[in-house]
C-alpha cells in the first residue's frame, strides 16, 4: 500500500511549481530561508574610492576561473557581493539586474556576482531564479577570502551586501556597503555607471 500512496504524494508535490508567483514581501517565490533582521553592517572596509582594487581569482558557475585583472582588460567591472543564496533580498536583487542588463552594456561594464556559497548551491539557486546573465563566482574556499580582501566579510562568515565599480585601470570608482536588510537602489548603481561613461 505504501507505494501507491507515496506515488500520490509525490505527484501532488511535483504538480506545485514553486516559481510561479512572487509574494509582495518576497518577490521571488523560492524556498527562501528567512534570516530575520540582521545588523545592517558588520564590517569596516579599508578600501576607498580611488584605491586599487585587490586582484582575485575565483571559480565561476560557467566552469572557468575568473581573475579580476583579466576582466578589466576588456571592460569596467561591477561586483555585486550578496550575503547568501536562498535568502529574500538577494533573490530579488540579482533578478533585478537581469532587467537592467542594457545599462551595463551601455557603460561598457560587466557585472559579476560573488557570494561565499559553494558552486552547487549557487547553481541550484540561480537556476531556480531563472538564470542570470552575469558570471557568478564562488568565494567558498578559502572561505570568504575575497570578501575579506575587500573588507566586507561579516563575523558570521558571509559577506556584506556590497557593490564595487572598478574601472579598466583597476581603480575603485564606487563603493556601496549597503544595509544587509535592504536592496540597494538600482537607480544609484545605474547613475554611478553613467558617471563612469563620462
Amino acid at each position, binding site marked *: 500500500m505504501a507505494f501507491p500512496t507515496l506515488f500520490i504524494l509525490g505527484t501532488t508535490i511535483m504538480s506545485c511549481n514553486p516559481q510561479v508567483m512572487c509574494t509582495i514581501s518576497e518577490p521571488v*517565490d523560492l524556498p527562501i530561508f528567512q534570516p530575520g533582521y540582521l545588523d545592517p553592517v558588520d564590517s569596516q572596509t579599508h578600501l576607498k574610492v580611488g584605491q586599487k582594487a585587490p586582484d582575485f581569482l575565483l571559480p565561476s558557475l560557467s566552469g572557468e576561473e575568473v581573475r579580476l585583472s583579466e576582466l578589466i582588460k576588456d571592460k569596467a567591472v561591477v561586483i555585486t557581493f550578496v550575503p547568501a543564496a536562498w535568502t529574500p533580498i538577494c533573490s530579488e536583487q540579482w533578478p533585478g539586474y537581469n532587467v537592467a542588463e542594457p545599462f551595463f552594456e551601455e557603460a561598457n561594464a560587466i557585472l559579476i556576482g560573488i557570494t561565499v556559497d559553494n558552486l552547487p548551491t549557487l547553481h541550484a539557486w540561480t537556476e531556480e531564479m531563472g538564470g542570470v546573465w552575469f558570471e557568478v563566482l564562488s568565494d567558498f574556499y578559502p572561505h570568504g577570502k575575497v570578501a575579506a580582501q575587500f573588507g566586507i566579510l561579516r563575523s558570521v562568515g558571509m559577506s556584506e551586501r556590497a557593490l564595487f565599480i572598478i574601472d579598466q585601470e583597476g581603480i575603485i570608482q564606487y563603493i556601496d556597503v549597503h544595509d544587509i536588510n535592504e536592496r540597494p537602489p*538600482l537607480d544609484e548603481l545605474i547613475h554611478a555607471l553613467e558617471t563612469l561613461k563620462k
Partner: protein
Amino acid sequence: MLSLKLPIRHNTGWLAIPASLLLMFSGCQTDEPAKQNVPSVSHHSASELYDEGSPFHKIFTSEADFVILTFFDLYCVACQQSADNFKILGERIPVAFPDKKFQVTGVGIGDTEFELGVFLRKYALGYDCLADPEKEFEVPFAIRGTPTVLVFQRRGPDCQEIYRHEGRFRLDDLEQMVTKVKEYL
C-alpha cells in the same frame, strides 16, 4: 507558508495517505497560491472610483466598458517571465473585442518611477503603466503577490471585478481571460 516534512520509512508509508489528501486540498501553499482564479468578490462603487483621494481614482481613468490591470514588479522573476504575455494581452484585447472599449493599465507595484522605466525599457508593454513605490494599490486591490491580472467591468457608475489571475501569466491564461470576459458581454 505551509511546510510539511513527512517521515518516509518502509513501515510508515501509510502516513502518506492523510498527507497527500491534505496537500491535494490545500494547494501548494495556504497563503501564497501558485496559481488561482478567485471568484468575483470585489465591487467598487462610484464614490470610490471618482473620489480624488482614492487610489482607484488613479486607475479608473476612462469610461471603458472593461478595465484590465496587470500588476508586476521589476524584481519578480515570474513577472519577467510574464512580461511578453502582458504585451500580447494589450494587443489581443482590441482584436478580440473590437466593438467594446477597454482600458489596459500596468502597475509596477513596489517599483519607483525609475525602476518602472527600467522594466518597460526591456519589456515594452505598449500601454500606460503606473509606478506604485509605496504599494498604495496592494490593499485596495487585494494584491497578494505578483504578477496579478484583474479585469473589471463597468456596471453603470460602479465597477465589478470579473476575473483575477495570480501567478505567472501564460498564453493559455490570456485565452481563459478572454473567454471569461466574453461571458460578461
